[in-house]
């Protein structure tokens, strides 16, 4: 069932794509690459809450540094998949592995729809929280300041979170997720609560830091146009299984609303809607 509608390129072709190195990667070679993304291997993953089986066998390989978007209707299990990847829930059956590397807790970070900033800590110390075990090290301040500058909020370091706008809070949350240089960054509807213009600005920011830092990105969203604009690959989840696996081959930086993206968006949407008709 889940392979029947696959539109993915074959594995071998995927591998050669990675070697081909698109233009964006060439640009990045000129900057110091601080971290490298981790690949993800998910085998036979299942998860139930009580009698409700949310994930019914997920098999998925995500190459290092890929930007994957996961879309689906509410309750399809996409957030659960992300929470399992991030280690926030226990796995019932199956496995999730991150290549051969021994991973540190700091290697995997999550960003939520709510910024989840500590209201009683100034912006800078909120970012320092993201350093994990390195919080008390000597260069904590400097690293947090660098991460804040990266999201364009260097001048807000001494503010309380309560005076920031929704978009600014989410940028602080992004800085906190980035400060420990994660190798996998999972986003759970990070832009869901933002207004349309702030959303677009944030999408550009996410794409930029992803290209700069080269982590593997997993974005859960219900906004198909966001998925198509940002991701290399869009997974559609239906009833706890991967129903479609679509590559987005458009070159970066992408033009919002281009014919190519709109066509892809339309076909993914029609998948989602036709599933609606069947039930």
């Amino acid at each position: 069932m889940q392979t029947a509608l696959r539109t993915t390129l074959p594995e071998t072709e995927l591998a050669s794509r990675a070697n081909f190195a698109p233009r964006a990667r060439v640009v990045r070679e000129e900057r110091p690459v601080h971290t490298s993304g981790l690949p993800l291997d998910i085998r036979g993953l299942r998860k139930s809450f009580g009698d409700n089986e949310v994930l019914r066998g997920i098999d998925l390989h995500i190459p290092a540094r890929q930007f994957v978007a996961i879309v689906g209707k509410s309750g399809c299990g996409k957030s659960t998949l992300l929470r399992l990847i991030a280690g926030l829930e226990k796995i019932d059956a199956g496995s999730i592995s991150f290549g051969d590397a021994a991973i540190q807790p700091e290697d995997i970070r999550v960003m939520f729809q709510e910024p989840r900033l500590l209201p009683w800590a100034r912006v800078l110390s909120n970012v320092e929280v993201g350093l994990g075990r390195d919080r008390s090290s000597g260069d904590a301040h400097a690293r947090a300041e660098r991460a804040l500058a990266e999201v364009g909020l260097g001048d807000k370091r001494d503010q309380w979170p309560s005076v920031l706008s929704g978009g600014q809070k989410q940028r602080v949350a992004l800085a906190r997720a980035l400060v420990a240089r994660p190798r996998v960054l999972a986003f759970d509807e990070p832009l869901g609560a933002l207004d349309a213009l702030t959303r677009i600005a944030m999408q550009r920011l996410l794409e930029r830091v992803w290209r700069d830092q080269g982590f593997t990105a997993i974005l859960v969203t219900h906004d198909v146009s966001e998925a198509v604009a940002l991701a290399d690959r869009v997974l559609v989840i239906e009833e706890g299984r991967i129903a479609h696996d679509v590559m987005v081959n458009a070159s970066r930086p992408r033009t919002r609303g281009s014919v190519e993206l709109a066509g892809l968006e339309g076909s993914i949407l029609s998948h989602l809607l036709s599933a609606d008709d069947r039930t």
Partner: protein
Amino acid sequence: MSLIDSISLPRGFRLPRAGGLVEWIVPLAVIAIWQVASVAGLVPARVLPAPSDVALAGWKLLLSGELVRNIWVSFWRASIGFLVGGSIGFAFGLANGLSQLSARLTDTTLQMVRNVPHLALIPLVILWFGIDEGAKLFIVALGVFFPIYLNTLHGIRTVDPQLIEMGRIYGMTDRELFRRVILPGALPSIFVGIRFALGIMWLTLIVAETIAASSGLGYMAMQAREFMLIDVVVLSILIYALLGKLADSASRVLERLTLAWHPAFQKR
């Protein structure tokens, strides 16, 4: 300070800034009217002595050293009782907020005890402790315990679970999680408890001192009643009012210092 004020001047209409003296206008006016009424003979001195007579009585007691000694004794009892009862209440609040087992073990019992008016225990406490210091401290500590216990518990239970999850994701240890997330999150509620407790502290102490004591402000007032010294009785009541106000102001200052992040305490 004045520079900052002039920069942030609002454009619209605004009431003049309330200085530190504004809040004293009403009490001072009441005293002035009271004085005038007494001098004019509208209020008989046997019912309510003039403020000047009360001040004079205070001055005499101050010179004899009796006033300072009694205030000190009451203040000491209030503080020790508050510290003991407050610490125990805080400890139980923490334990029951953080541990399900502890809450199931003790919360029901504490809720039952809470519904007994603690002042009703005075006869029992006198039988236990006599009219010693122990009796007063016990009653004050018991009165202070519950507001601090309840509000600490409530504060910890209502810390945003999403923030706790965030702390865990970012690898905070239990200690760090408590210090950086749970305690600051519970602090506004704990302060509500402290301010309630301060009120109960004075109330309890005064009742206890009035009924059974050989020193302190309550004792001074009861002693004065026996000798028909109504000016000293009124003086004692005024001192209670001032001490209560002092305790409240102290907790407000503390609140302002520790809750600077809270939107309600930020400069507008």
